[in-house]
């Protein structure tokens, strides 16, 4: 009797194990003999430009690049804690410099792009963006704009630039009750794209035609109103030769053309 009980018991387990194994085997992708992809951590504003650049790089060198987009400050934390990346493209100089100072990088990095900030409003809100934002101020008071989205200034350099320029415009107090913060530029864009927030401050690269994540009236914020957004990249200590090639590639004239197309200077 015991042996039959045992057999049945183990048959159940064996059935289940087979089922799970089947699933995992079925999911194994067919690996081609390829170089392992480079692992790049990139500020969320690069979503768009960097996708085109990695596609071009792959076309030329057969080397594929895995890019993770997120807030620069978040990646800084992760890298300090031991996250393994080949290359880090920050949205400012500070986070890249701090990694270099801690000896986690190869070299001091290089500024690859200069970003610009825009103020965007949804076409549905019917707000006109005039010179001194008088209609925007009215809209914040009469409820046409009930939410104003920016990225978290502690983690995202574009969020910091947004708070700085709001202050220069004297809008801080007016915007404060309506402020919603995305964890990075990507989430801020999600708020705008899903109409959860009818207005906000986001990178120029997100609203320009090659990317066109959102469509609506926008105005580029003068650079003198915030700390210039100098975006720096650094090679991490254990970066492969492929990563070094990609780092060089991002600085070529060919790459610069693409940067410019997406609104970087």
């Amino acid at each position: 009797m015991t042996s039959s009980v045992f057999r049945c018991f183990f048959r159940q387990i064996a059935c289940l194990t087979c089922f799970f194994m089947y699933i995992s085997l079925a999911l194994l992708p067919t690996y081609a003999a390829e170089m392992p992809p480079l692992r790049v951590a990139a500020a969320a504003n690069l979503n768009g430009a960097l996708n085109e650049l990695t596609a071009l790089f792959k076309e030329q060198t057969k080397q594929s690049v895995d890019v993770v987009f997120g807030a620069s400050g978040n990646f800084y934390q992760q890298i300090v804690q031991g996250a393994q990346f080949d290359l880090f493209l920050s949205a400012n100089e500070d986070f890249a410099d701090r990694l270099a100072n801690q000896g986690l990088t190869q070299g001091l990095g290089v500024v690859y792009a200069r970003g610009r900030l825009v103020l965007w409003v949804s076409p549905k809100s019917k707000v006109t963006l005039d010179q001194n934002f008088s209609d925007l101020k009215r809209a914040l008071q009469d409820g046409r704009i009930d939410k104003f989205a920016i990225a978290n200034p502690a983690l995202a350099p574009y969020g910091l630039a947004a708070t700085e320029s709001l202050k220069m415009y004297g809008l801080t107090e007016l915007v404060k009750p309506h402020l919603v913060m995305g964890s990075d530029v990507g989430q801020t864009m999600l708020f705008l794209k899903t109409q959860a927030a009818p207005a906000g401050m986001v990178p120029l690269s997100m609203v320009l035609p090659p990317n066109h994540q959102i469509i609506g009236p926008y105005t580029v914020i003068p650079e003198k109103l915030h700390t210039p957004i100098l975006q720096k990249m650094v090679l991490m200590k254990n970066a492969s030769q492929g990563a070094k090639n990609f780092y060089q590639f991002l600085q070529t004239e060919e790459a610069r053309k693409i940067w410019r197309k997406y609104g970087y200077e």
Partner: protein
Amino acid sequence: MDWQALRLSVELALLTALFLIPLGIFITYWLQHQSRLVNQSFQVLFTLPLVLPPTVLGYYLLVGLGRGSWLGNYFYQLTHISLVFSFTGIWLASLLFNIPFAWLPILRAFESIPQDLKDASKTCGLSTWQTLLKIELPLAWKGILTGLIMTFTHTLGEFGVVLMVGGNIPNETRTISIAIYDQMQTLQMDQAGAMALMLLLVSFLTILLTQFFLHRPNHIQRQVT
């Protein structure tokens, strides 16, 4: 569809479940033979992840196992494996986070075995080890199976603690739930939708399968009737 993320999730869930089930049986068995005080304190400790916010566990894991901590640093020097923002890291987090999901069903199943049966098996001259193998495990198999399925599906759906301890690194820590979140953040709604549907189907099928297995009569019951 991010197949890489799905495969990673299944691997993580399998590794977690297959490791935790023997551990769950061991814990249950070990606690039975402890004093009331020890038993109660460990029950509280092992049930804690059930109510603990994932961020709390994530915080302690980052502080305790990160490169800044002596443990994380020592382990890295030794093996060159980072205990955070790596697959090992999210596996460790999953193990801790899933203890109650694997162990509680097993505990309940063992508790429901009548003392008479165990006494009878002793009287028949079976050793403790034989009693476990021949009496208790076969009677508790439903609990063990439930624990396995719960752990597997719960790990598939794990989000907060994986994001905190693992970040979002492709083919390392980007599990399927993180991939859905990432695709939302990068405004790829269609892809996120496809993956969400996939996860919904997998979860549904798993529960269906569990129901199918669990509602079959026990072998001992079958033989009695």
